[in-house]
């Protein structure tokens, strides 16, 4: 299987570490690892497809943003993080949460607004949290997670922990002032932050060229004096490789890194979006590079995965999704008397802290 190094373009002004020195070749050589990548992406895909159905049937409400087509980004990056690392995400974060290990049934229960949800039903699709897994949400203010992320990294650094904070955000968020402030701060203070920019070429209906004077985001990020790479975000192996390189560098005190993960959402921005602004042919072209199919084809080409294996995987994952839906449906709502809880911390928690 080819390593596709061309998929990673080095935009760093600083000198990049030699790929052979910093890449963990063994992991990606491992066939079972590749199968697990496919399984993770499949979990996200099938979970989100089910969510779309459940939205249509009215079981899920509010805003629902799925990342179908972008699964390789979440799964590739998460491979390179440890349990001590932290993750900050967006409102399009089911994939990040699942790939980070947030149990599917707590995520589904959250979609249902149930008390068993990972945010007790208070957050919904846009606000998945799991502090035990250092998954700090779920932020629906575009760019709003960036300052949090540099703060988490600052605290880790000041407390001498070797953790890295991965912060996901979109091409749209790149235009927000907070991006500028945070990349500069991270670079200035050499904070252990991975800026994982999911460039899906649109912010709602606005194509990147209509939002950014300079659309080469990796180049732009490099101007802050940080290491920066553009990556084929449809190729989970390329994402993992680039992210591992970046995370190693960060963990070794190399300062923050920026990854421009070029990807595409196959569906509309949200369930409200009639998707008037994209060319059908463009969507079709990107679908040819479906990250699940890309990997599956490789695994079938090199004999790792038979059609039966793939079928089995789908069945298993669908069973997991079914189970999550059943659990969510069976779960209770939070009592309405608890409405005003969690505005301020509760005494019992204070004692436990």
């Amino acid at each position, binding site marked *: 299987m080819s390593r596709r190094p061309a998929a990673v373009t080095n935009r760093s002004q600083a000198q990049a570490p030699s790929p052979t020195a910093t890449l963990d070749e063994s992991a990606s050589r491992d066939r079972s690892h590749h199968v697990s990548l496919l399984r993770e992406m499949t979990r996200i895909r099938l979970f989100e497809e089910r969510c779309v159905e459940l939205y249509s049937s009215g079981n899920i409400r509010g805003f629902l943003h799925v990342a179908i087509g972008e699964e390789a980004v979440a799964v590739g990056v998460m491979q390179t993080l440890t349990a001590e690392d932290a993750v900050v995400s967006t409102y399009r974060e089911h994939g990040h949460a699942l790939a980070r290990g947030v149990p599917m049934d707590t995520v589904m229960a959250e979609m249902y607004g149930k008390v068993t949800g990972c945010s007790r039903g208070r957050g919904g699709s846009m606000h998945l949290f799991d502090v035990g897994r250092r998954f700090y949400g779920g932020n*629906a203010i575009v760019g709003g997670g960036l300052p949090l992320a540099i703060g988490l990294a600052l605290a880790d650094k000041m407390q001498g922990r070797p953790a890295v904070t991965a912060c996901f955000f979109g091409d749209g968020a790149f235009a927000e002032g907070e991006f500028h402030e945070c990349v500069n701060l991270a670079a200035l203070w050499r904070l252990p932050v991975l800026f994982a920019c999911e460039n899906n070429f649109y912010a709602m*209906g606005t194509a990147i060229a209509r939002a950014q004077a300079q659309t080469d985001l990796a180049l732009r990020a490099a101007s802050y004096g940080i290491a920066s790479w553009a990556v084929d975000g449809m190729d989970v192996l390329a994402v993992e490789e680039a992210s591992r390189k970046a995370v190693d560098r960060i963990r070794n005190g190399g300062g923050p890194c920026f990854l421009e993960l070029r990807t595409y959402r196959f569906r509309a921005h949200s369930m409200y979006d009639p998707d008037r602004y994209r060319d059908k042919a463009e969507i079709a072209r990107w679908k040819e590079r479906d990250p699940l199919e890309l990997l599956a084809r490789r695994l079938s080409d090199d004999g790792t995965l038979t059609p039966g294996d793939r079928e089995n995987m789908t069945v298993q994952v669908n069973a997991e999704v079914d189970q999550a839906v059943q659990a969510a449906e069976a779960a209770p709502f939070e009592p*309405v008397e608890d409405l005003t809880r969690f505005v301020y911390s509760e005494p019992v928690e204070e004692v436990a802290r």
Partner: protein
Amino acid sequence: MTAATTMPTTIPATAAKAGTVETTYREALREAIREAMQKDDRVFLMGEDVGMYGGCFAVSLGLLEEFGPERIRDTPLSESGFVGAGIGAAIAGMRPIVEIMTVNFSLLALDQILNNAATLLHMSGGQVHVPLVIRMTTGAGRQLAAQHSHSFEGWYAHIPGIKVVAPATLEDARGMLWTALQDPDPVLLFEHGSLYNMSGTLAEDAGPVDIQRAVVRRPGRDLTLVSYGGSLPKTLAAAESLAADGIEAEVLDLRVLRPLDDETITDSVRRTHRAVIVDEGWRSGGLSAEISARLTEQCFYDLDSPVERVCSAEVPMPYAKHLEDAALPQPETIAAAGRKVVG
């Protein structure tokens, strides 16, 4: 004052004289933008996804095709930048309508709104006028959770130098924009998200309305329910249920949150001697507090019972429907407060 001072207060659709059309709040807003764009070429609309996408709540759908990308101007995600650009453009002779998708995001532009738009006229000694209109969606009720459901219009009403309006009817959705554009000062126009689909009839020749007066939407003698925006339908429903109990509530629609129309409010309360204020904003330090304080100041001796407030629970809005419903003013809670002040 603006030309609008002489215009009649908005009147219920049922009283319309000319032919009427079926329309929605969303369409009425769109018609208002379209008309303004046609009548005045200094007017343009700017904001995130107002063009190609058609507006995040479809208010501006079709306008890009009609007016082109210069005047229906999509922006990057840069709230402070493009709101400030609207201020600058207003100063230099344009009549911008800036759209901020949701009131929560407007916090990113608050420095520009408060430190510049509201302040430039005064700190320049009267030289710099900012004839800008900023539209935003406000309010809860659609399970959008804690970062998309705030009601900050009352909070904005704290700021001298701006005006704040909140259309609650088709007439006002159709008519407030033009008047706001004629105003030499910044006007913030808050559209409640739950009203976009509200439908009804509107006079074919519906046009500009004043942005100065509150109006009585339902007359009554026993108490005054003060309301506005997305809470108006709920308050009217509460009045109906009170009527079933023989309590006749007068329902006021504030329409304009800054400056408040004290006269209409006190006129009503001097007649009914009792008041309940309904405000989807948080209670503490909200608009409801200001109205209560003014009633104390202006008609203390007319009040037969303490002014009551029905507001949103002081929580960031939860996603789950039962919790969101419990957090918001509802016809039942409004009616209960009405019974309390009467009882």
